């Protein structure tokens, strides 16, 4: 095949912001090439530079042997299907398609012949006289393709042309576009952020990120051998695990060695390991290479998506003291006041304010007509050491309530394997507060002040799981245990066999299903 387009070190910047950082790319005749990447990766900019609507800051574009950077858009032998089609609203379907031919001053009968051929290519026979603004999205799309192809360009540029269509139509158009490309036999350069579109249609996929090309390859290459975590996550679904390459053909993760088919890494090099969900089989416990517990099962149509946890997360259990409602009633002033005991971290004592105390104790006052009253006086004397300290809240009419503030040293659980720590405090709540909560897991995290962090770099780790065994609708006074846990090692598995949540299972995968990738930035 012949090289048709060569991008040589294309750089583009807008207002000192670099959008393309030196793109080198060859495109051959007859190829269906997809530029794939999230929005803002520079794929559309590259397409617009090729179309002649933008000029690169530096670099060359060679088109069919000639440098074309200075050639204006209207003289370039390529055509574009625009994102929102950009059909001329004042022209009907026929005149839209005939636009380019009329500019080239072709004779009427030739124009008619060519337009009619295009109309049948895109399946719009009989639509010639229609008003384009009244066509459906899919039909407008076809007109836009016909309008571009009728000029017999060497290259057709498509700028996210399927974005505005609904799912069913999009799938139809994917096949249609591929069919048209094979029929007319020219190069298609297709821009999309949809990995499925890219996999379905392309001969070659160019994965872009932040103005750079990350990987170029056929859909199978990109899917099976992504160069890094970014590509692996972007294309298809995957399980990505931190690991260490012990030696050639041997990789280690979660304290276990696995045979693999990858080699050529440094000894003990930290790597990302990818295993596709469909490459993992669920087998009987102890029959596979890993054991775990089914966390969730989702039906996805053709298959089930099953999450299996093989290593549990780091957890910390606290006690929630549930109290009855104990409003202090002042009959004389017709006022009520309430507040709860609370625990607090020793580290927070120096920065404690009246506002904090009121909020943490959830101190509230109101009169018999249920109108809120302000708390005018808060008395507390908390010392900078462990202990129990009284605190009094008072309204202007002297209705008061006293609670205990318990200052404790933070206790957290560390997990060396997960390299994480979780911290949480015991707390007091009333029955009503628990019943009134509309997002109990979130509230429990907040009440217990539960946090988790990485021991490696102190970054925040999400509290993934809140476990408790009370029924919040019918809770009564007493002490309850609540466990906050981070996410452990979970594997996503696609299988057609149903597995019940909570089942203990084994996982099995072959050495060739483990794909080892260099860490981004190494």
């Amino acid at each position, binding site marked *: 095949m012949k090289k048709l387009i060569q991008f040589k070190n294309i750089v583009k910047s807008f207002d000192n912001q670099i959008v393309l950082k030196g793109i080198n790319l060859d495109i051959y005749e007859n190829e269906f090439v997809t530029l794939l990447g999230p929005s803002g990766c520079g794929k559309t900019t590259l397409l617009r530079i090729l*179309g*002649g609507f933008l000029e690169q800051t530096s670099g060359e574009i060679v088109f069919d042997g000639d440098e074309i950077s200075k050639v204006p858009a209207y003289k370039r032998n390529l055509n574009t299907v*625009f994102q*929102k089609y950009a059909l001329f609203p*004042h022209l009907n379907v026929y005149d839209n398609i005939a*636009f380019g031919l009329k*500019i080239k001053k072709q004779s009427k009968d030739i124009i008619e012949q060519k337009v009619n051929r295009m109309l049948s290519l895109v399946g719009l026979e009989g639509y010639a006289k229609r008003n384009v603004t009244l066509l459906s999205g899919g039909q407008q799309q076809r007109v836009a393709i016909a309008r571009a192809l009728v000029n017999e360009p060497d290259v057709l540029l498509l700028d996210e042309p399927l974005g505005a269509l609904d799912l069913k139509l999009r799938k139809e158009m994917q096949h249609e576009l591929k069919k048209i490309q094979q029929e007319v036999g020219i190069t298609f350069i297709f821009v999309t952020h949809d990995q499925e579109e890219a996999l379905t249609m392309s001969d070659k996929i160019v994965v872009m990120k932040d103005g750079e090309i990350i990987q170029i390859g056929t859909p199978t290459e990109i899917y099976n051998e992504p160069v890094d975590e970014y590509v692996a996550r972007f294309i298809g679904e995957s399980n990505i695990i931190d690991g260490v390459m012990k030696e050639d053909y041997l990789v280690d993760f979660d304290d276990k060695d696995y045979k693999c088919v990858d080699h050529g890494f440094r000894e003990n090099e930290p790597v990302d390991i990818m295993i596709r969900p469909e490459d993992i089989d669920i087998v009987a416990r102890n029959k596979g290479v890993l054991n775990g517990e089914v966390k969730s099962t989702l039906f996805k149509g053709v298959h089930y998506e099953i999450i299996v946890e093989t290593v549990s997360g780091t957890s910390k259990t606290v006690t929630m003291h549930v109290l009855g409602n104990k409003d202090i009633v002042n009959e004389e002033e017709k006022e009520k006041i309430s507040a709860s005991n609370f625990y607090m971290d020793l580290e927070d004592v120096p920065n404690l304010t009246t506002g904090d105390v009121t909020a943490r104790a959830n101190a509230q006052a109101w009169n018999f007509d249920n109108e809120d009253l302000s708390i005018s006086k808060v008395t507390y004397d908390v010392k900078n050491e462990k202990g129990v300290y009284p605190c009094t809240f008072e309204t202007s009419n002297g209705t008061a309530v006293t609670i205990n503030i318990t200052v404790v040293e933070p206790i957290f659980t560390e997990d060396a394997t997960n390299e994480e720590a979780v911290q949480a405090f015991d707390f007091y709540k009333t029955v009503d507060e628990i019943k009134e909560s509309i997002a109990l897991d979130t509230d429990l995290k907040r009440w217990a002040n539960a946090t988790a962090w990485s021991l490696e770099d102190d970054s925040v780790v999400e509290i993934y799981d809140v476990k408790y065994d009370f029924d919040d609708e019918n809770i009564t006074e007493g002490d309850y245990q609540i466990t906050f846990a981070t996410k452990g090692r979970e594997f996503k598995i696609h299988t057609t066999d149903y597995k019940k949540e909570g089942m203990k299972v084994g996982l099995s995968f072959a050495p060739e299903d483990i794909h080892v990738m260099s860490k981004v930035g190494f």
Partner: protein
Amino acid sequence: MKSFSRLVYPYVVWAAIFIVVPMLLIVLYAFTKEGNGVLTLQFTFDNFARFFSDSIFPNVLWRSLKLAIITTVICILIGYPAAYFMSKLHVNKRTMMVLLITLPMWINMLVRTYAWRGILLDVPVSGEIKVYIGMVYNFLPFMILQIYTSLLKMDPSLIAAANDLGANKFETFRRVVLPLSIPGVISGITLVFLPAVSSFFIPKLLGGGDFVLVGNLIENYFVSTGDWNFGSAISLIMAMIILISMFVTKKLDYESAEVGD
């Protein structure tokens, strides 16, 4: 929604009292004889016969139409390029330009025309040219703003699409920009031609006494002569001409959208 539709009632009443009833009165006056009471109404076509029998009146009408047409054409010729270049400016400059163009409209039209009278007093050109200057000056902003808005509304990707299909700047303008801005030009024409054809104080102030137009004629019959019947007839004739010209422009607009080539 339904309850809000009642808000239109005050306007309906207002329109009935101040627009519909006076119009009907004009029609009534135009078809009746002078000086008869409510009970002794005498219907007649004399007022219209009088207008067309004396060649002065049709001549004045023709002169008014000519003035309005030429004013409109000049406004398009100056206004279109102005609007086109404005629409190409950076957004900040665009806003500034719109402000500059609308700024004179904050001042009363009559005052501005008096100013022009002072400026043109010793300029040795005919009264007719002075009238054109005054007319174009007063009506140009309406034309510019209408065209400017329609150009601004245009999807820039259409221009990119035309370039992509091989059209150079000129072809792009001729085949895409111009046809799509025609609705703006049409509404500009409506806003310029209508007031221009019936204007009377600009010709009166700038043209001296010798430049009589239909507007002046109507003013004369109502204010000076007191012949409301004949004045009404002239008004009615002019209203008919305006209606016809509006119908024609609408028709042209429609066809330009249909054919487009």
